[in-house]
């Protein structure tokens, strides 16, 4: 018994490459076949046509779908709007997450830390739809919670539309920004802050020269989540977007009767995210994750 185990272990020990292949083949197969495979299928579909009547695929090559997307001003506006929403959401998440995570990681006492993390995580347990519908009630013009809250200040609820979508998505994705940034702050060595102040740096200078460079990778990690999640969302736009559409809505509207066109539209966010990742990689933030 013991001898067989020993030889067995010996075989894997003597063939590290085989061992690595054995360990990685299953997850790699999943990544390549299921994940990249479906992306490739999506991309190829974008060059096909549909039967006018049944809406079923006709596998003949055409560039019409991309042409239609890039020559219709309405779709270009939607691309710009979606991009704007994703950027605003990311920015807002960052503005809220930075002080909050700093407080959680460096100021709050050890007793409070787990509680604060739990509070940040709790909304993730609730259903996405419930949260969005809650925001629908909050944002309701005239009689909503927000209108009631800021009405006495002479302000009006933003109602359903661009701002509504940005607020709701910021609420939805905030935990995905807070968690990595919080982790970044906890990894920040206290000695560096001390050294900075020993060398005579005031608060702002420490923030700019020590804290920001140190947590930049965490911010980038968080922004990848908030940015790409916002870019692909369509249900929020449906519920609190009034009549505004995002790219996802166009896909959702057309994928039944014109799958290739929907595929062409879906490649846009994929390309945008890839460009974003490339930009991030160039900045060197990915290596520090």
């Amino acid at each position, binding site marked *: 018994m013991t001898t067989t185990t020993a030889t067995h272990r010996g075989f894997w020990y003597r063939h590290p490459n085989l061992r690595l292949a054995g360990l990685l083949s299953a997850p790699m197969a999943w990544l390549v076949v299921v994940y990249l495979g479906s992306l490739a299928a999506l991309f190829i579909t974008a060059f096909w046509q*549909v039967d*006018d*009547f*049944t*809406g*079923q695929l006709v596998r003949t090559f055409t560039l019409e779908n991309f042409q*239609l997307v890039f020559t*219709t001003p*309405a*779709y270009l*506006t*939607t691309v710009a709007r979606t991009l704007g929403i994703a950027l605003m959401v990311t920015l807002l998440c960052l503005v809220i997450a930075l002080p909050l995570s700093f407080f959680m990681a460096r100021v709050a006492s050890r007793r409070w830390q787990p509680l604060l993390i739990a509070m940040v995580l709790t909304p993730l347990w609730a259903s996405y739809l419930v949260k969005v519908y809650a925001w*629908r009630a909050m944002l*309701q*013009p*005239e*009689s909503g919670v927000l209108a009631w809250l800021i009405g006495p200040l002479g302000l009006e609820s933003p109602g*359903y539309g661009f701002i509504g979508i940005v607020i709701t998505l910021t609420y939805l994705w905030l935990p995905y920004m807070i968690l990595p940034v919080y982790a970044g702050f906890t990894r920040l060595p206290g000695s560096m802050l001390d050294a900075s102040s020993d060398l005579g740096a005031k608060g702002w200078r420490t923030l700019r020269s020590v804290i920001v460079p140190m947590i930049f990778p965490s911010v980038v990690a968080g922004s990848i989540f908030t940015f790409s999640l916002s870019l692909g969302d369509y249900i929020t736009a*449906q*519920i609190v977007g*009034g*009549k505004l*559409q995002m790219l996802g*809505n*166009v896909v959702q*509207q*057309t*994928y*039944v*009767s*014109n799958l290739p*066109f929907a595929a062409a539209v879906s490649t846009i966010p994929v390309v945008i995210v890839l460009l974003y990742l490339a930009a991030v990689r160039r900045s060197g933030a990915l290596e520090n994750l």
Partner: protein
Amino acid sequence: MHTQRLLKIAAATAAVAMVAAGCGGSSDSSSASSAEAPGGAAYAGPVGDGEGTVNILAWPGYVEDGSTDPAVDWVTDFETETGCQVNVKTFGTSDEAVKLMQGGGYDVVSASGDATLRLIYGGNLQPLNPDLVPSYADIFSDLKMQSHNSVGGVPYGVPHGRGANLLMWNTDKVTTPIDSWASTFEADSPYAGSVTAYDSPIFIADAAVYLMATKPELGIKDPYALDKTQFDAAIALLEQQEPLVGEYWSDYTKAIQAFNSGTTAVGTSWQVIANLAKAEGGKIESVKAKEGATGWSDTWMIAKDTKNINCAYKWVEHIASPETNAVATEYFGEAPSNEKSCALTADKDHCATFHAGDTAYWEDVYYWNTPTAACLDGRTDVQCVPYSDWVTAWSALRS
């Protein structure tokens, strides 16, 4: 063991022989129509024991098992009687239904006229064998064998009910009763900013119906058969409407909430939305507008690749039977399809209110249909705009 196997072989041989005989017999009489009929042959029957489950794709409010309202339940009895466990999935638009059906996994669908032909020609449905559905005989004859639920003389399902898409308003916001779509389409509408419209390409037909009344010079005969000029006029009208719209809806719960809260003052709606909104205490009125309306005529159809054919037929018979048809259509707020249902509704005036047998009422209600390049109204001198172009036009309008 051995005998069982022999029996199976014998049964298979018999089945093959029967199919062969069936083909031979029909070749001289109706081969043309059955050869054209997509989806293969109808189930020969007889309807045997249930398979244990039936997966139903339905409009909201069509398959109620008591989970929406404990008093509203026409599923539980069916389950105990037949042993067919009902799994229901609802959809908000016909496009969604088509996509879900094409994905497979559903045995029965309640399809509207703008989905049926796409599903039939897409090979997703099988023809219906009316002999296996006793209630089929009692369905109003102007609902059977229509262009949207039959092909070449072969029926593809059992009609369920019909209704008109209504003009609905919140009486807090709209204080004087209205009867015209003008308040939703015309630029001078006093309700600008709180108009709603149905978020689906098929809504282009609603604009066409309004144009039929207001711009007769366009010569629109059928709102689903629009040539390029007529189609462009409908799109222009929708572009004029767009600034008036506060929200478009496709999710009926959102429509209920929007009407009840007053976020939406006026717009297109379904009777079931009016009923549920009123049940929640909303101040809602609805009417069939004077210009006429789009509407629906829904049909229960069976998937081509169903694994639960017996349960599927049992369900279709159950939902078409006078008792269930009466409860279901009364709950939804539409005209029943079964003539005998009218005697069984809780509100004895239900059939009169919803004009079940009133042929004249339905003359200016245009049932959802699938627009095709070959004009549905029979014109051959022009090409009509096919549905795929309706979809791109709608998504461009909405973007």
